[in-house]
């Protein structure tokens, strides 16, 4: 497996993540992402017995659940103050269409 991942793939991932990468950054990411994937890829070479179930998270416990109860929400002024722009009631964003 090559050390690098295809630049076209890096460009596509950057586009999906809405990140702009310079030429230099594309080269660097192509190498760094390749190294990460190769490192993790070692796991694929491990032979497992057939009856091992897939493992989806780093925590082994299950069922952290909560009862269906309403607690007070965050005050609107305070939550809207995190937004770049608002009219006091709504978030205001550049037109979508």
């Amino acid at each position, binding site marked *: 497996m090559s050390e690098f991942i295809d630049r076209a793939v890096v460009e596509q991932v950057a586009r999906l993540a809405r990140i702009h990468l310079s030429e230099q950054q594309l080269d660097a990411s192509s190498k760094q992402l390749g190294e990460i994937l190769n490192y993790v890829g070692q796991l694929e070479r491990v032979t497992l017995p057939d009856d091992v179930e897939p493992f989806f*998270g780093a925590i082994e416990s299950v069922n952290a659940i*909560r009862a269906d109860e309403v607690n007070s929400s*965050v005050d609107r002024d305070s*939550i809207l103050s995190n937004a770049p722009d608002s009219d006091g*009631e709504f*978030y*205001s964003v*550049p037109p979508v269409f």
Partner: protein
Amino acid sequence: MNSVNESAKEARARVGFDQVTVVIGMEVHVQLATQSKLFCSCSTQFGAPPNTQTCEVCTGMPGSLPVINNQALQLAIKTGLALNCEIARSTKWDRKNYFYPDLPKGYQISQFDKPICGKGYLDIADANGAFEPRRVRLERAHLEEDAGKSIHDESSRGGNSKIDLNRTGTPLLEIVTKPDMRSAAEARAFLTELKLILVYIGVSDCNMQQGSLRCDGNINLHIEFGGQTIATPIVEIKNLNSFRAAERSLTYEARRQFDLWQQCGLTIDDSPKQTRGWNDAQQVTTMQREKEESADYRYFPDPDLIAVSTSEEEIAAIEEQIDRLPAIWREHLSEVYNLKPYDADVIVSQGRGLVDYFREVADQCGDSRIASNWIGQEVLRYLNESGLEIDRYPVAPRQMAELLKRVVSNQLEQTRAKEVLNEMVASQLSVAAAIEKLGIKAVDHDELKSICQQLIDEHPEVAKQIQDGNIKAVGRLVGKARKLNPNANPGLVKDMILKFLGI
């Protein structure tokens, strides 16, 4: 080349719409009836002032952690059981990544490869036999969180969009069918039956105006042509906001795809899935702008959430809570109460409340046909006009049964009984009080005799017609009897006059 194309086009033009199989699959989003959101304790109450029901979790603030709402899980499992689905013993959460202003986290928490409900089915039929009964297979039903609401500037001056995140994080169950429906009418029947079941088991209010039930339809055509079956490109029609819109848009779309195929011959191999919207004003589907690379959601397991496992005991306990479903009630009303399938459906499709009302009235008055007629006509008319549910209907089942008993025993004639019912509805009176208020008195045998004799004496020409064989003419005398005494029972008057005339 041109002539080859031309002849292919001519051949397509000779194909009739009856050689076409319409193939439809539905995706339905149902808002589950929880008090709080799927992963936080903000309220799900509809109609609150914008952005007053949000918190760090549902707006995706760094460092906040989602925790699953147990009731959402329970309602999802209950729905799955009612829809004959396999229930996952272990289910997990995945992030569906995309950017949109009403999705503050930049991803939606959903379920990708281990949905809470797996394969199931829903049987549909038409009480009037408009189509053959059909089993619609369900692919899956998974839990996910809703997005917020965007309000766009409609002035076309390019003003900013406004975002309300109150709805963000509300629990949705997305139910996906296999492409098993073969007409727009079947799709509508599926939606109607699905909604009925969801309301019967109380997992959602299914209020379409408030967005508690939203549906998308996938449709294409299979056409027998040149000895093989050709499939047209699949179109997804988004955001159908009523069942009528669903039926009309699918009907329109089937025809549009057929016309387009006859013109251009495009098949499923020539074109990717297309998204269209339904324009209700113009009754057409229109092309929607594709989101760039929209299909690439890069699902991956949400590291903030852990798997949920469900035990056999929990599933059995939820199953216990499911009472009889609409299909079982239809059967029950047909078999136990002898109703025709259509009449049973009229009652069952109004919801569980009317089924119980009917059973109580039928049991107490002893005549289920009369109970079904009166409820199907008088009661439903009132409910439709007033927009009320049966639990707010002013006449209690016991009173309705009392009234119908008098109809069954001929103490009250139909027209008079309807007047009594109207009085009971208007003044909330008992049957006896309403009868008294209207001054209805039973007409005794002697008085009935004298009325009939008087009518024959005053109208010898009619009497003669009747004796000459024109039995129908008796109707004119019956009408006049009502004027002499509004309480005279028309059936009894008719019989007595005929008897007097020796017929």
